[in-house]
């Protein structure tokens, strides 16, 4: 429920300043980055994504560590990725 999944910021969405496309394990979806407006996010940055919102900016090294941890979780991570695949935030 409180899972944060690491995503790499690919690009900002032109028509909405709070939305950006992130890549989570090859799944590209739009998420809201409004909570990190103070962080000066740029493409290539890594963020922890929770229920469609980027919650924290993290290092690439941390992203890899979280990714390893999540893969070890098994089903809960698979469920989270499935839910993300079904997401279509606009």
């Amino acid at each position, binding site marked *: *429920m409180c899972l944060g999944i690491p995503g790499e910021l690919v690009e900002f969405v032109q028509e909405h300043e709070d939305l950006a496309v992130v890549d989570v394990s090859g799944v590209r979806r739009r998420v809201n980055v409004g909570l990190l407006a103070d962080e000066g996010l740029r493409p290539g940055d890594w963020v922890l994504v929770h229920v469609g919102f980027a919650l924290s900016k993290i290092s690439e090294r941390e992203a890899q560590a979280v990714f390893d941890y999540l893969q070890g979780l098994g089903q809960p991570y698979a469920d989270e990725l499935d839910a993300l695949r079904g997401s279509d935030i606009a």
Partner: protein
Amino acid sequence: MRFVDEYRDAGRARALAERIAGSCRPGRRYTFMEVCGGHTHTIYKHGLEDHLPSEVNLVHGPGCPVCVIPMGRVDDAIHIARRPDVIMTSFGDMMRVPGGSGSFLDAKAAGADIRMVYSPLDALKIARANPDRRVVFMAIGFETTAPSTAMTVLRAAAEGLGNFSVFCNHVMIIPAIKAILDSPDLRLDGFIGPGHVSAVIGCRPYAFIARDYRKPLVVAGFEPLDILASVHMLLGQLAEGRCEVENQYARVVPWDGNRIALSAMSQVMRLRPHFEWRGLGFIAHSALAMADEYAAFDAERVFDLPGLRVADPRSCQCGEVLKGVLKPWECKVFGTACTPETPIGTCMVSSEGACAAYYNFGRFSREQISAAAREPREASQP
């Protein structure tokens, strides 16, 4: 010992476990509560308890948002969902949580339009696409999740969306920790503080735990090494006679939290005078409702709700498990009448619930569970 051995940093985990053992004063018992369900999951998944010295006892706290939703609130949500003009939207975790008369899944099977969403923003999109229906988002979660609901409502308000509302069940971790500290049932020596909740609220709100209750708290990450490092930090504080809030998870948690998230929450939501937590009872100022300015987006004001309080099943001991008084396997229905397939209590529903985590990672053979469940014990007496 196979669990931690499967972990990529098994060597470092074992080294930390040795340092933990060296930090314990012989004969003294240390009881630490991990507040967050994600931590509980890691502890069971990797069998961390087997690697801690017998002096260290980890007890599991109330930090599983699905687990603490009282049955009456589930019934209220189903009452809304049954209306033909309503589309109810919910995180997947919530679908199997039992109310007094079934779950979302049961209501969906009976014809209610209940849709799983990944994000409240997905619920917003459904509202835009269905202007002739009323779309309700079942909002649950601690401070990790509440800002997402708040930001979504702000967006709905900016768009002037008239058919979207939130059934707000957001709860707050600090009042729950305080209730546990004030409970006579349990003596704790310190806390492993929640990770992602703290990314929002920061570390300052925990200061009273160290100052007024003289208990150390270490905000921790979710990996096995994080948990072990936090236990080591707690023991270090106790050995040195310190009681402080420390941040082991600084790579994600800023000391002051997330300013924008806190501001969105305080704009859109207000404190409830009290809220019922499943198993813990009513806790003052422990949950959020929609603020008056956003009444149009408040499902509690848009719809008439029964608002009935429903007592937990008598056989269910989730309350004791959520307070850390009972270990999951000590509950008299654990693994027998209550399983993840047919949960009686909420702790068996979510993967972060202590009971589901215990059950799924096979910490006990079914024979042991049955034997344990048959043994009479004081805590289970009415």
